[in-house]
């Protein structure tokens, strides 16, 4: 097991709103090792982006973060002042955002925006920072890198801008990188390129990575471990193989039903969908959060809160009252129909 770069235990985010307390992230725990990719998967609004913003301490000012443990490279992030946190952001831990079109400042050149984090965090000269920027731009596959430094964001395409964002996140050689849906806003043809690039760079620089996405295809390609998130909670965690081969939680099973498999799903065949909507996260929810949409719901589901528990294999956990055998049997029955 590689050394742990990031450890998160019992992370909660709470946002007071007029109708009560919104709890978009509830008791989330995970860890990421050196060179390891953890994918957090879930539908819109399940709390995956807020989880990443909470780690970076970039939540909107109204939102409150609580965590039992939040440790990066052995240093506790909880209780750090804004100043100390700013020293870490973009330096030891950086983030790539979903929207490359709007995530770069239109008023400054690429070179300016690439070098500023390095000039802020490391004691380097402007020339050194520029050299590093050029080197990284070449790494992320941008041609004529030195001349790009003088260009403005509006002169670049979305794919190029996302490459610039990736280079920017790597400027200070972070140990941990959080990619929040890095390919969602891009063309399908570009998506694969960007993902390959991220995986390659992560390997090369031996960083821990959290990849946040709602695209299971993406996950299958690059993730070492997967956490499936639903309504503010992790409902299933395990290695990519465990999640894809023997999904135990009914929600994970439902998600996988929704993807067509080339060669296996017949043309015109009905793709799965999960009926119903995500429950409101205002106030406390009793029992399983997925109970309202689960095809196997029964009384025990809403009687008391369900905690994550081990599935059949080591390191595979799920949050359901059904035994793993029963859950997997349900899935096989569904598949046989």
């Amino acid at each position, binding site marked *: 097991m590689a050394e742990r770069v990031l450890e998160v235990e019992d992370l909660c985010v709470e946002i007071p709103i007029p109708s009560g307390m919104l709890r978009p992230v509830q008791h989330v725990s995970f860890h990421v090792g050196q060179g390891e990719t953890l994918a957090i998967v879930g539908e819109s609004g399940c709390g995956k982006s807020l989880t990443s913003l909470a780690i*970076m301490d*970039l939540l909107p000012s109204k939102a409150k973060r609580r965590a039992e443990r939040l440790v990066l490279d052995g240093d506790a992030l909880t209780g750090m002042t*804004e100043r100390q*946190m*700013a*020293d*870490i*952001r*973009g*330096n030891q831990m*950086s*983030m790539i*955002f979903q*929207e490359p079109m*709007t*995530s*770069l*400042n*239109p*008023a*400054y*050149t690429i070179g300016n925006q690439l070098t*500023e*984090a390095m000039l*802020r*965090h490391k004691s380097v000269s402007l020339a050194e920072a520029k050299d590093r920027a050029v080197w990284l731009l070449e790494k992320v596959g941008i041609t004529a890198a030195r001349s790009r430094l003088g260009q*403005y964001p*509006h*002169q670049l395409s979305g794919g190029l801008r996302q490459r610039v*964002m990736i280079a*920017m996140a790597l400027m200070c050689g972070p140990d941990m990188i959080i990619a929040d849906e890095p390919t969602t806003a891009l063309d399908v043809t570009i998506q694969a390129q960007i993902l390959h690039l991220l995986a390659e760079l992560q390997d090369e620089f031996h960083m821990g990575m959290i990849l946040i996405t709602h695209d299971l295809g993406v996950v299958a390609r690059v993730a070492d471990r997967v956490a499936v998130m639903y309504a503010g909670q992790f409902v299933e965690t395990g290695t990519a193989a465990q999640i894809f081969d023997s999904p135990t939680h009914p929600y994970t099973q439902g998600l996988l039903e929704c993807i067509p498999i080339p060669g296996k799903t017949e043309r015109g065949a009905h793709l799965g969908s999960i009926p119903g909507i995500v429950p409101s996260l205002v106030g406390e929810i009793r029992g399983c959060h997925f109970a309202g949409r689960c095809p196997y719901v029964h009384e025990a589901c809403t009687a008391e809160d369900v905690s994550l528990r081990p599935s059949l294999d080591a390191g595979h956990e799920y949050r359901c009252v059904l035994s793993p055998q029963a859950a997997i049997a349900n899935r096989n029955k569904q598949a046989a129909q």
Partner: protein
Amino acid sequence: MLQYVLKRLGIAILVAVTVSMITFSMIYLSGDPAIALAGETATQEDIQNIRRVYGYDQPIVVQYANWLWNALQGDFGQSHYLKKPVADVIFERLPTTMLLGACALIFALVLSIPLGVVAAVRPNSLIDRIALTIAVVGQAMPSFWFALTMMLWLGIYWRLLPISGTASWANFVMPSIALGYYITPAVMRLTRAGMLEVLSSDYIRTARAKGLRPMTVLFKHALRNAIIPVVSLAAVQFGFMLGGSIVIETIFAVNGLGFLAWESIQRADLPMMQAIVLVLSFFYIILTFLADMLNAWLDPRIRVM
């Protein structure tokens, strides 16, 4: 960039020509200028004489061409009332108005931009409320009343500042505040709105995610983008302050262009009015052009195609 500058310059010249035509035709808007000049008791012969002397008998295109040609050479004709060259009178008064306008603009920007920024950084806080109050009061309060109140307290009760004339810098304090305060609310509200929008944008989140210092995020990344509409507004308002300071100039007996315009209207001094309108319009055009250039410098999307 050069292409952009030339394009803007071309537009500015077109606007200037249009404005000069409108300004010239102003004299015919209130009827036959010769009759108006000659007065009620004039005979037909007097009117004919005036027509010939002032060139009103020539075709209007010729009159316009002559007038424009002379104006371009700095000759705006003789003032009917003062019997002096119009250009001399205007250039005597212009520096005072420019100085007053510049002081007022600086006062307004120095007050309103920081206030707008702070209000946007802490929306709905006490300081935001205070800024809003200043804006509402500023918008609601007639400038003449504000000027007189200030004069009463600062000038007469407390005797801190002189109340009229242009003898020293102290004379300009109250008129500048009175004139500048008038545009403060608009600039402040626009700065606040711009900053609020920019601060919630994705690139500000990126800047914060890089661990940049709060001041760098606020001033380097946010303000530069938020200030762009403010530049355009400030340019127009500055033009307005040059021409629209009649009330303030009258109250504080500042012998500027606004005061002159008011006098000339009363005296039906047509060449003088024409020249003032033309000069002020040109200032507007120049200011708008400069604002466009400043914005192009601030925003590469305008500058780099």
